[in-house]
């Protein structure tokens, strides 16, 4: 746990920065448990082991649009899209439908079959089938506002681990222990029983679990089991066509492409094996499932797979989401063909109180408050300074109830702390230099659970985003907080607000929602001031400049816009940037900017940060052209002073700190850099399989 202040000396209009390098944020992501891709909306829904759900927009640079916080005991095992609706089933025996506009579960239905292992919808979208621990496949009718239990299929002896509908909706194939059952969906009778071989050797005594199953339209059934086999069956006759042994461990997941020409299987080794329906000869008569590619993108078990039209999406116990484009569907060596790994959330989990020098870390089940360390003296650029007083953890606040923390915020003076779950909202007062904490009990009733929280710079107001993109404004007072008003967006905005930014002078508040709408409110009048023209990509970070009142918005496709709130138009610099275009290397970055801040000493500076770098954009310097080197800080340092001016451009990027979770500028002009090295996360993951390698 280092807090080593370092001095950085950049002579070119950057000034000196003392850097607080923070590594004591023990952020630990949760394993990916299930996935479902909706081709219609191009959204991927992801369920994690702690019950959290994430929605990724695949058409917007794989941006993590929405995060629904988890719940103790939700234990999601399977996800299913029914049109635009999202359903999940879990080991708690419940089917949950989610409200994606309010980021919470809409309702839950108990299936009364014990833990539910799998869920599947028929191609017409009318019936939902769930496979339960007690051996029944239960059918639910999908109605407009709810689901309703219809009937049980024939009860089997043994749990139903996986199921798949035939595209016609007449048959269901269910994977159980040691066998596969084919059901007639109309009569409910089990028509065929396909016996799956157990493994050889020691595994012969253990039952083989059919982890995943797929029913194709030509009545072929593809199954994957714990003995490491992918088997191809004839679903009409109930016979085995082919067995492929792809691993010594379990094959945990299967996914078939929409056109049924390709399927992928995920194993416990972390490999994803692709099979394609190809013919060995030129004529297309004798097509067969042939093993083609093997991808090794994970170090731990792959538990969830999705096969989109152009890519294979995999996730598992190593908590990383990997999107691997298939090179026969995309153009080679382009941005689209690059592999994408999402290891960290696309939103900030760290809040920095600039005046107090206190950090707030958000975990799913608790909050931590830390005071930054201090150091005297100066040092060489790049050297470390002696620490006079180390960082100390002031408060650890555990959440109440079973819902996980959705959002949290710390006031800049360090005196107020607020957090919200899907069911409750809590506000705390911090005293004696943020050491003692007491809960504010009298809260206005309009202050409902929020998706995003923000304090005003003078710590007098709290902004909490609510339903329909509205924001509730509350005045912070000691015994009782007063409700000041609700800022309403124009009619028809339903998506949740995921970004909130208040200006330093207390006059403006900017909100952004997942529909890419950015609204700016006048806080003096508590009314909508203006709406920024909608840009096709979702905003990922934004901030209002303290002196010029320009709103800087960064989007998921890495575009940057600067909008003048006073003049209600884009600034001249922004127009110049759009005209010239951003550097190609900037646009090719695959992690979004999660934080925008400004430098009080230099009004021309904009500091932006993503996972691998932070950049100081100097508006007074020329913009980098396509032929310039973008990452030129190292080379500039080696040049003599007069030459530096010639070669420098406005994007000064620093890549010294990696896996950045937050970069912030304190009032005393020292930089706070919160890092979370990936190695620290990987070393705490559960056990991977033991691979025997030569010479080890």
């Amino acid at each position, binding site marked *: 746990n280092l807090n080593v202040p370092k001095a950085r000396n950049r002579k070119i209009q950057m000034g000196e920065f003392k850097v607080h390098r923070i590594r004591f944020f023990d952020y630990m992501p949760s394993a990916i448990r299930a996935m479902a891709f909706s081709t219609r909306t191009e959204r991927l829904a992801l369920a994690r082991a702690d019950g959290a759900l994430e929605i990724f927009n695949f058409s917007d640079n794989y941006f993590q649009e929405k995060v629904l916080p988890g719940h103790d*005991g939700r*234990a999601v095992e399977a996800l299913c899209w029914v049109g635009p609706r999202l359903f999940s089933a879990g*080991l*708690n*025996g419940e089917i949950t439908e989610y409200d994606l506009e309010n980021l919470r579960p809409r309702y839950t239905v108990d299936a009364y079959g*014990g*833990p539910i*292992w799998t869920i599947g919808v028929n191609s017409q979208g009318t019936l939902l089938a769930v496979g339960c*621990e007690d051996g029944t496949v239960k059918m639910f009718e999908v109605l407009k506002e709810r689901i309703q239990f219809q009937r049980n299929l024939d009860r089997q002896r043994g749990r139903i681990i996986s199921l798949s509908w035939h595209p016609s909706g007449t048959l269901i194939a269910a994977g159980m222990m040691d066998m596969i059952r084919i059901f007639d969906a109309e009569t409910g009778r089990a028509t065929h029983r396909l016996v799956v071989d157990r493994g050889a050797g*020691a*595994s012969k005594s*253990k039952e083989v*679990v059919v982890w995943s199953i797929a029913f194709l339209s030509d009545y072929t059934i593809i199954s994957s089991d*714990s003995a490491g086999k992918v088997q191809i069956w004839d679903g009409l006759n109930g016979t085995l066509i082919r067995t492929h042994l792809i691993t*010594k*461990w*379990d094959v945990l997941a299967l996914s078939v492409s929409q056109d049924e020409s390709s399927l992928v299987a995920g194993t*416990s080794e972390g490999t994803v094996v692709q099979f394609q329906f190809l013919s060995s000869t030129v004529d297309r008569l004798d097509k067969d499932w042939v093993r083609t590619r093997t991808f090794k993108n994970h*170090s731990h*078990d792959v538990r969830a797979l999705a096969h989109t039209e152009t890519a294979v999406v995999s996730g598992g116990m190593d908590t990383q989401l990997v999107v691997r484009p298939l090179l026969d569907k995309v153009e080679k060596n382009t941005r689209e063909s690059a592999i994408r790994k999402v290891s960290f959330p696309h939103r900030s989990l760290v809040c920095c109180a600039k005046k107090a020098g206190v950090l707030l870390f958000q975990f799913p089940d608790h909050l931590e408050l830390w005071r930054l360390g201090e150091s005297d003296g100066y040092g060489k650029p790049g050297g470390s300074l002696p620490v006079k007083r180390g960082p100390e953890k002031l408060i650890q606040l555990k959440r109440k109830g079973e819902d996980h923390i959705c959002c949290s915020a710390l006031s800049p003076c360090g005196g107020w702390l607020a957090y919200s779950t899907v069911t409750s909202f809590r506000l705390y007062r911090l005293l004696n230099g943020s050491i003692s904490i007491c809960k504010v009990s009298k809260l206005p009733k309009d202050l409902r659970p929020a998706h995003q929280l923000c304090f005003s710079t003078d710590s007098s107001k709290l902004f909490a985003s609510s339903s329909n993109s509205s924001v509730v404004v509350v005045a912070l007072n000691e015994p009782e907080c007063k409700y000041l008003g609700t800022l309403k967006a124009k009619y028809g905005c339903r998506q949740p607000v995921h970004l909130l930014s208040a200006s330093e002078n207390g006059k403006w508040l900017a909100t952004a929602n997942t529909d890419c709408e950015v609204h700016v409110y006048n806080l003096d009048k508590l009314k909508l001031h203006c709406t920024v023209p909608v840009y096709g990509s979702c905003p990922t970070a934004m901030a209002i400049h303290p002196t010029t009142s320009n709103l800087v918005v960064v989007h998921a496709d890495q575009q940057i816009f600067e909008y003048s709130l006073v003049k209600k138009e884009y600034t001249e610099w922004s127009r110049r940037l759009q005209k010239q275009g951003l550097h190609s290397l900037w646009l090719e970055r695959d992690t979004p900017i999660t934080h925008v801040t400004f430098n009080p000493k230099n009004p021309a500076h904009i500091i932006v940060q993503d996972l691998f770098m932070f950049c100081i954009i100097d508006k007074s310097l020329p913009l980098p052209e396509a032929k310039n080197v973008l990452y030129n800080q190292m080379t500039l340092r080696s040049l003599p002073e007069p030459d530096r001016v010639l070669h420098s451009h406005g994007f000064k990027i620093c890549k010294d700190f990696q896996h950045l979770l937050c970069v912030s500028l304190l009032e005393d002009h020292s930089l706070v850099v919160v890092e979370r090295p990936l*190695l620290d996360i*990987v*070393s*705490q*993951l*559960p*056990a*991977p*399989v*033991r691979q025997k*390698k030569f010479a*080890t």
Partner: protein
Amino acid sequence: MNTNNSRCIAAVVKARSLREHRPANGSAGMQGGGRVRSRSLSVTMRRSAMTLQNNMAKNQRGEAAPSSRMTGRERQMGGFSLLLESSDDEGPEEVTFEDSKADARRSMKRALDTARREKELLKEKRRKRQELFQEQKKRKLLSAEVLEEIDSTKQEQSHVKAAEEEAEPEEVEGRKRNWKQNAARNLKGNYTVTTVKQSTLASSQLKAAEDFLHSRMYGPGSRRTTSNEMLSLENKMGKNKSAAVQFVKKNWACQKKAKAEKLKKTWIHMQQIPSS
């Protein structure tokens, strides 16, 4: 008839020479049980041959044939026996039927006895082993049992005491001491111990399902290693070879380090006091 007879005799002699151990006791003519295929033999001769053969067979088997019967038959074919005995090279041993019978009986009894003894020995071994296992199991389960008992009712306090007394002396000394301490702390005053959140059927089923998943993926036979080892292997085999991850165990002797830190602080403080 005569040629037949002579042929029979020749056959019998041949048969006799083939069977060395057959005591020549009885007529030569009508011997050779089964091998003699002569349809023209008179019934009486055949019968007598059969009886002779029977007697000889009985003798071989060591069965007791009443001597009176024997002698009677011998009288019948007295002439035959004389013929046989005279043409025999080696005389059989004089072993009476009772002796051989008794011998055979003894050997069989001995064999049966040893078999029985072995079986009993094995049984005894198995039983002892089973007892040992059950004892070990009881020892293991004992603490959990005791926990449950404390959990349910107040009366169980006495059971705890009894269980502790019953506990084997080989039980882990620390555990026992802890238990004694805990028991001593908890047994004062009137109170009940219950869980804060009642565990429902759903939560127990959820736990069972999670246990099933965990045992399939990480249970015995899953052939797993640790993340640390995996990363260390990568370091070893990678392009830039480096040391194992967590080569130096940084979290060793935490308490000692904390103690040393405290000592250092107090020492510095002490140094500052005389100077001020």
